[in-house]
């Protein structure tokens, strides 16, 4: 029996070569696209999931009721973790975690290393496998853990236990011994480092040992088995009230409202496995896997569209197989057997398409990884659970897309089938609904492409309030003290043609080639109120170098001697201080030091465009370090100027890598997610359109064949080519029209939801959606016209004879 089915399946597939090819083409494209998107999405979803204890590990954060509303904080003070371990029950492990950079100081091999300061518990909690040495090596203050890769880089081999290492950490040289070698950190790890050292080496550790108001690192805890995070959160109330008493009193004084539990400051726990998906920037914690799921969703939509094609083609073609069905029934075939026969024919197509799709996705894997900037690999999908999930989805697709036409066919009455009568009206309705769905999806995706593209364009071209085209930012990663290097840079570049000015600050704009992001914020009391601001340490000429606009007062200047106690603020900070005339007003920091506001800058977007412009205050205290140099160049000869700067840096720090880049590149880098999303949605819509067109093409081919005689008669009676083309086309265009009416509101809603995430965003206009709809209509027209015009042009005598 099976052999018989297989035989007839392949004979049928062979007989209808054009449909088999169109189906295989569509399905294999869909399978390939879905596989690649699944690879991308599952990679994202697998972030941080490899830790054996992930269910019991949490990141600690605070929810603070400030007068301006609720705010979240993940930064913890140094005594926090030890106190937590002492005072709260059910905590198995606690570790502090702070990342920093370090410079290896071995014989000319100056390497920038990613370093973390952490506690010995770290390696008990997290699954970072120790290959050599012991896992509790951090218990010894001078011992460190390094990864295999780092060992290879530093020593050229990996069996380096006991080797000594000199590291430059925050300008201080320290000697360590390698105590353990770790397996390389998996790429799906959110915690990334080359070197782990004991937390006691962290900056200002001794000064901050008992300070609860200086927060600078994250804290992770692992609960005892059976303990729940909510129980811990509850029992933490007294802990918080004790240690943050002063803080809470300030909040009360400033008029903050307590939360539903009556607390001003509340300790909360974020499940570690959600860390990659967590957003602390709002007034409540947002854990969202929407992005990977959206990508997975696009993959499913593509499969769905290809499945619709398959269903529509199978049903449309079934007219040709009615006699066979009737005949088989009179020969004794049961419904079940017929169903199985037709379904198995579909399974073959799906199987072949799957194999082709896998081949195609393997071939496209590396361009895909480049285009979407992802380290994900198809082999990541080979975990057993995922394979089973993929297998089940494949079976499900064949069952639905292959099963529906099989069901329709096997349920036909014997006589009807024998007479070749098929109640096509009902089936055409199903077909039309499916085609509307298909085109709706395509129109939604096309609108998405337009809107995302426009928003990205808008963000890239928006005037951010500073000069991003002619300023180069250089991460100061040299061996010498950073301030010294800035001075040397000034000297080297002084008078060079094309170099306009040199300055520095402790933070970058956008995302530099060093890949590091960081922010520094502080709060203080001003006129009996708590205020908060971002902090920026700058060097002379900073506003001038970046082209920031001065609103009133002055900027830091060499002609004023006391400028290390001056600050320059932005308009948002003036509002935060509630000062109409902020210049010459004074603020007191650290209980005793008085700073004077000397100037106000116009607001500029120093942060992401998803945020409102926040208050910022610039300091020029020479005791604080600078981490980035900024150099303004003339608009002419940008390339030469850039090279001159690189040369200068190489002369100053011959062993440090030059990571300078234009700020507009840095800003662009921050749009990575938007860019990837735009690429995914636009390629998704491209594939959706191609697939929908394959379906449309096939259906139009069938309809034209079915109506050959009608067309012939109409022509004989005197219909023109245009009239016939219109006749054949208008039914399809109606479907696209309905699809537009459904898709436009859906797309509008989805896209306006998405735009809500951006403080600075484009406006949605009807014409965007109209354009998407028109594009769909145009593409549909072109697709159909291949067949319809040919049919309309055909000599009527010919088409009548073939009947």
């Amino acid at each position, binding site marked *: 029996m099976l052999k018989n089915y297989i*035989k007839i399946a392949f004979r049928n597939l062979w007989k209808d070569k054009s449909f088999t090819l169109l189906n295989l083409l569509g399905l294999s494209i869909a399978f390939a696209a879905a596989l690649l998107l699944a690879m991308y999405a599952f990679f994202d979803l697998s972030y941080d999931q490899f830790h054996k204890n992930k269910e019991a590990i949490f990141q600690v954060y605070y929810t603070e009721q400030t007068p301006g509303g609720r705010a979240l904080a993940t930064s913890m003070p140094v005594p926090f973790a030890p106190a937590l371990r002492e005072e709260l029950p059910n905590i198995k492990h606690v570790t502090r975690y702070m990342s920093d950079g370090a410079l290896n100081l071995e014989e000319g091999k100056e390497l920038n290393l990613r370093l973390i300061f952490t506690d010995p518990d770290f390696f008990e909690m997290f699954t970072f496998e120790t290959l050599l040495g012991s896992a509790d090596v951090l218990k010894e203050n001078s011992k460190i853990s390094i990864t295999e890769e780092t060992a290879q880089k530093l020593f050229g081999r990996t069996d380096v236990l006991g080797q000594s290492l000199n590291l430059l950490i925050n300008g201080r040289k320290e000697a360590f011994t390698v105590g353990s070698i770790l397996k390389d950190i998996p790429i799906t790890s959110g915690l990334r480092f080359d070197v782990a050292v004991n937390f006691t080496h962290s900056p200002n550790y001794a000064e901050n040992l008992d300070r609860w108001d200086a927060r600078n690192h994250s804290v992770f805890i692992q609960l005892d088995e059976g303990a729940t995070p909510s129980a811990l959160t509850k029992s933490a109330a007294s802990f918080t009230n004790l240690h943050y008493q002063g803080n809470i009193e300030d909040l009360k004084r400033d008029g903050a409202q307590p939360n539903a539990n009556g607390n001003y400051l509340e300790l909360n726990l974020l499940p570690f496995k959600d860390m990659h998906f967590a957003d602390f920037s709002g007034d409540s914690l947002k854990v969202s896997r929407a992005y990977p799921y959206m990508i997975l969703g696009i993959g499913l939509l593509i499969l769905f569209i290809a499945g619709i094609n398959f269903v529509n083609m199978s049903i449309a073609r079934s007219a040709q197989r009615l006699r066979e069905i009737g005949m088989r029934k009179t*020969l004794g075939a049961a419904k079940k057997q017929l169903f199985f026969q037709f379904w198995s024919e579909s399974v073959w197509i799906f199987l072949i398409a799957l194999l082709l799709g896998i081949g195609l996705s393997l071939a496209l894997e590396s361009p895909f990884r480049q285009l979407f900037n992802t380290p994900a690999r198809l082999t990541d999908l080979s975990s057993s659970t995922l394979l089973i999930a993929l297998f089940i989805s494949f079976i499900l697709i064949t069952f639905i897309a292959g099963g529906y036409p099989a069901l329709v066919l096997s349920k036909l009455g014997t006589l009807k089938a024998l007479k070749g009568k098929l109640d096509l009206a009902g089936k055409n309705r199903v077909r039309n609904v499916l085609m509307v769905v298909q085109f709706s999806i395509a129109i939604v995706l096309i609108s998405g492409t337009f809107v995302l593209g426009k928003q990205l364009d808008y963000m890239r071209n928006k005037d951010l309030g500073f000069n991003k085209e002619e300023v180069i930012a250089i991460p100061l990663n040299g061996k010498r003290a950073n301030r010294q290097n800035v001075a040397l840079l000034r000297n080297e570049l002084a008078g060079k043609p094309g170099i306009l000015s040199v300055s520095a600050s402790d933070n970058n704009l956008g995302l530099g080639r060093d890949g590091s992001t960081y922010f520094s914020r502080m709060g203080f009391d001003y006129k009996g109120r708590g205020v908060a601001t971002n902090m920026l340490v700058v060097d002379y000429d900073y506003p001038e170098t970046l082209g920031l606009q001065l609103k009133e007062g002055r900027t830091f200047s060499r002609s004023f001697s006391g400028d290390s106690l001056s600050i320059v603020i932005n308009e948002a900070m003036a509002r935060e201080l509630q000062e109409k005339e902020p210049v010459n007003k004074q603020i007191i920091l650290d209980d005793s030091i008085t700073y004077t506001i000397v100037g106000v800058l116009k607001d500029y977007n120093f942060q992401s465009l998803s945020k409102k412009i926040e208050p910022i205050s610039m300091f020029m205290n020479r005791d604080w370090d600078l981490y980035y140099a900024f150099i303004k160049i003339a608009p002419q000869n940008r390339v030469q100027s850039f090279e001159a700067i690189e040369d200068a840096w190489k002369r100053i720090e011959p062993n440090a890598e030059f990571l300078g880049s234009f700020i507009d590149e840095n800003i662009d880098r921050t749009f990575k997610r938007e860019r990837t999303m735009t690429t995914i949605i636009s390629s998704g819509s491209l594939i959706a359109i191609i697939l929908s067109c394959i379906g449309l093409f096939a259906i139009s081919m069938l309809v034209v064949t079915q109506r050959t005689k009608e067309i012939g008669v109409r022509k004989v009676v005197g219909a023109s080519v245009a009239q016939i083309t219109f006749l054949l086309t208008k039914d399809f265009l109606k479907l696209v029209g309905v699809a537009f009416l459904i898709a436009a509101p859906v797309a509008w809603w989805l896209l306006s939801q998405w735009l809500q995430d951006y403080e600075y965003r484009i406006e949605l206009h009807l014409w965007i959606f109209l354009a998407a709809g028109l594009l769909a209509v145009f593409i549909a027209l072109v697709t159909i016209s291949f067949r319809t015009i040919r049919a309309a042009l055909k000599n009527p005598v010919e088409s009548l004879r073939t009947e």
Partner: protein
Amino acid sequence: MLLQLNHIYKWVKQGGKRVFLLNDISLDVEEGEFISIMGPSGSGKSTLLNVIGMLDEFQEGEYIFDGEPVHSLKEKQRAKLYKEYIGFVFQAYHLIDELTVYENIETPLLYKNIKSSERKALVADMLDRFNIVGKKDLFPAQLSGGQQQLVGIARALIAKPKLILADEPTGNLNSKQGEEIMELFKELNTEGVTIIQATHSESNAAYGNRIIHLLDGSKQLQPQN
């Protein structure tokens, strides 16, 4: 008695009025008979054969097949009955285009779950008997009409039915081919197979041992009967 029709009425509604396709048909068929149903085109021959073959419904009357009241059977049981006992031969042959001669003949056996070795033997016998061994790997489109009908009959016979229903089996054939088919039916009949054929040719009808005349869905009494 193989089958018995008692006062069978079949009608369709057209414009609110009943149009009778079968009008009070009663018929007894004994095992071993060879019956020809005659009548002009549109007289209801095919309809009657389809009712007998349980492919079509009727509105009124009784139908007893091999002692089983067909009219009160469920669709599934009916299907089982005709699968077991009835073979169909059609005017348009109705061979499956994608299957070879061999495979077409074999198909009913597949639906009866007969073992492969037995199938082979049965199909080989049949090919032998109809002298089409040389054609077994050809597809229907490669055969003449007479040959196709031979295959159709071979297929109808392979499951060893008690009753063969043939709807104008020679309608698409020339007279020589038609005669051959009729001779074959005669031969089968002498072997004990009951045959009911519809035809509008007097000479073909004469092969049967009883002739029923139909006109507008009613049985006609002919003077010579």
